[in-house]
């Protein structure tokens, strides 16, 4: 049995879902809700025009959000069924700077189905029958991130975390929430919880294990048809009479004998594949807490990658993750290559007499400078988005549009974290303008648009799109007009240049590159031809430190 897989069930659903310990949590904490959010805004806009929510966009948005977490997927037809409306409500309140009460009062006499949907949803909030699932999921993502950081985060120079420390941190975190809830007077039953069950003890066991249940029912049908109706208990507080209720139900089957061999084999067949342990969480927070708890119990820990700063599951002593980063390589591989290059550079440039190993100098990369997208660029990209979106299925197919919009959002994200420059974004938007023109032309003639040269790809490519260079390369080569590549290539020494992608202007594959870059910066004549630059002899000098005595540094003591 796989130690990292646990299964859970939810109310009002007869299926079982699984959690891959640590992976599900990491996926949730890193899930990008941007596309879902865009879909909701689009649905809201269309609903305002047409008076009803567009069902195709809603179902698409729900499919997207259900990928965030298996619990969301499990509850997408009940608790999370109105998540798109929730997102629209939140957007309206936020953009128009109004409260829920005001929006509710606006829609109290609904004029169309859209207003009815909003009015009904806010009424459900008011009557404590529902909550805004969109804001909840965003807050829970933040909660999960904070919890991981609290438990697994390490500061510089801190020793490796022991099991004891991790458990203590986790308990401390949970206790803090409990203390806050207790002090605020929150009742016990209002907090999220998880029950441990088996398929046969689930609240909806009769439906979840339906085949065997039917066989059992057939045996006791007559006795049960004369039984006392206990449905009235539904609205009563039964917390003190659980045993009594259970024994009253048991009374009808207490004389049950073990079934015959055929029936038993039938039950065996039906039950064999069911999980032996099944969790029944009542909320998403409960599932997150459960996952963290089980991870710690089973020794599955997380560590922050020293290169990209994201968490990954610990499998060995490595401090880098296996995610493909903006360079097209995994952080681990990139680091290994960096170490190799440093060692090689040190060997090549070291004077022959200096054989004794010197400490490896640490190449400090310049911190990336985050750039905010100027409003006019934002407006331009939004216009392009709208123009292309309108023509999906007419001049541009859906996949191409998705790829384009993903590229744009990656580009913006990279700008924010300083891994791309504004000029790269502008270049991409220039390309998008041309693409848009082609698409407009094609949509009139109802034919696929003519290929547009992806000039931006020569210099830039956002992280996620830069994973398969080998596949993209030939396509670019086949294009009729191909401008010569930028001289930037000259700075890349690595043997597999094709894999190196942009957005890493301040990082270097080898120490040699780092020194070269520094050398060129200092050079007065910056416009040296790239080939000349390559040939120029580079002398790598070690920093020359002068050791000061205490007296020189601080002066003589009185």
């Amino acid at each position, binding site marked *: 049995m796989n130690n990292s897989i646990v299964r859970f069930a939810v109310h009002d659903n007869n299926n079982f879902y699984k959690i891959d310990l640590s992976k599900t949590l990491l996926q949730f904490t890193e899930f990008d809700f941007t596309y879902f959010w865009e879909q909701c805004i689009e649905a809201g806009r269309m609903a305002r025009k047409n008076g009803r929510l567009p069902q195709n966009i809603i179902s698409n948005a729900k499919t997207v959000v259900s990928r965030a977490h298996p619990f969301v997927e499990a509850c997408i037809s009940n608790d999370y069924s109105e998540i798109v409306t929730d997102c629209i409500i939140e957007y309206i309140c936020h953009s128009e700077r109004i409260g829920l009460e005001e929006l509710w*009062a606006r829609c*109290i*006499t609904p004029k169309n189905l859209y207003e009815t949907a909003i*009015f*009904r949803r806010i*009424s*459900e909030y*008011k*009557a*404590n*029958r529902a909550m805004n699932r969109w804001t909840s999921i965003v807050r829970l993502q933040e909660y999960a991130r904070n919890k991981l950081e609290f438990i697994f985060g390490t500061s510089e120079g801190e020793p490796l975390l022991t099991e004891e420390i991790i458990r203590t941190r986790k308990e401390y975190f949970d206790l803090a929430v409990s203390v806050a809830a207790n002090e605020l007077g929150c009742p016990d039953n209002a907090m999220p919880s998880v029950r441990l069950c088996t398929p046969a003890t689930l609240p909806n066991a009769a439906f979840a294990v339906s085949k065997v249940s039917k066989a059992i029912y057939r045996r006791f049908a007559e006795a049960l048809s004369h039984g006392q109706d206990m449905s009235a208990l539904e*609205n009563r507080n039964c917390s003190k009479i659980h045993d009594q209720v259970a024994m009253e139900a048991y009374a009808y089957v207490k004389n049950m004998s073990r079934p015959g061999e055929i029936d038993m084999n039938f039950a065996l067949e039906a039950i064999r594949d069911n999980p032996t342990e099944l969790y029944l969480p009542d909320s998403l927070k409960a599932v997150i807490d459960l996952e963290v708890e089980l991870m710690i119990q089973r020794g599955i820990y997380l560590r922050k990658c020293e290169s990209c700063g994201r968490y990954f599951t610990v499998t060995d002593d490595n401090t880098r993750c296996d995610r493909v980063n903006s360079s097209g390589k995994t952080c681990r591989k990139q680091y290994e290559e960096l170490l190799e290059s440093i060692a090689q550079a040190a060997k090549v440039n070291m004077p022959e007499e200096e054989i004794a190993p010197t400490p490896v100098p640490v190449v400090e990369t310049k911190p990336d400078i985050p750039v905010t997208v100027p409003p006019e660029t934002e407006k331009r990209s939004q216009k392009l988005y709208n123009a292309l979106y309108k023509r999906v299925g007419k001049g541009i197919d859906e996949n191409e549009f998705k790829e384009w919009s993903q590229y744009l959002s990656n580009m913006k994200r990279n700008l924010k974290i300083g891994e791309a420059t504004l000029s790269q974004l502008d270049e991409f938007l220039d390309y998008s303008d041309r693409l848009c023109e082609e698409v407009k032309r094609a949509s009139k003639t109802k034919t696929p648009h003519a290929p547009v040269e992806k000039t931006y790809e020569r210099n830039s490519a956002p992280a996620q799109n830069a994973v398969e260079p080998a596949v993209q390369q030939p396509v670019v080569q086949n294009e009729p007009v191909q401008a010569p590549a930028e001289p930037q290539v000259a700075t890349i020494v690595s043997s597999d240049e094709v894999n190196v992608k942009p957005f890493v202007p301040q990082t270097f594959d080898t120490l040699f590159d780092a020194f070269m870059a520094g050398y060129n910066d200092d050079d007065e004549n910056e416009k040296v031809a790239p080939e000349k630059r390559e040939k120029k002899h580079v002398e790598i000098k070690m920093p020359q430190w002068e050791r000061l005595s205490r007296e020189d540094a601080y002066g003589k003591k009185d």
Partner: protein
Amino acid sequence: MFFINETAAINGIADTIIKGGVSLYNAIKYIYSITEKDFYNVNIKDAFKVVLNNITDTDSLQALGLRINDRTCIEMQNEEYNRVLPMIVYSLAVRIPTLKNVKNGDDFMTDDQLYRLYTAVMEKGAENYKDMISETFLETKYLVRKGKKLPPFTADWYKTYIYTNVPSLAEITNKNMFLLGLVDVLFAMFYSCLEEELHNKIIEFTADKPEDEEK
């Protein structure tokens, strides 16, 4: 008063009165159901806002998650209580003469039109069971003609009827006491909003006067 299609106008206004009656009847049941298990979940102020903003929507309170069934208001699910609906409609019908005060310029509804409206409402099932409601159409007509003030629209007849005819609601219980307090406020506020709705409806029926008629 001039209507483009007088019969349609009379029927339309009668429908509004009937729907208003049903809406008030249902609103009492819905709000009564709050006492079952939603006392701290549903804000009664919200319930009032919803009802008073949707005078002719008979089930608007479902938006707050309230339901009428044997579990939530079993005390009202009986023959005696069912008679309350025609009585509510009757209590609204006898006040039809007040619509004479609705004016479109100098135009207002004639006595004949008002009587036809009253008859239309009565034909749709209004009834004064055991003469519980002391007001009559003629009395109201007289007061309106004389320009005298009408007595407020209260729930007195409703309470009298409950005490004398519906034992399940006459009993002193938490739920029933809540009901008696609720109807006092609801009747008065509801009538005021229904009056406004009827005024709008009448103006609506006269709004599209043909051009040649105007000339």
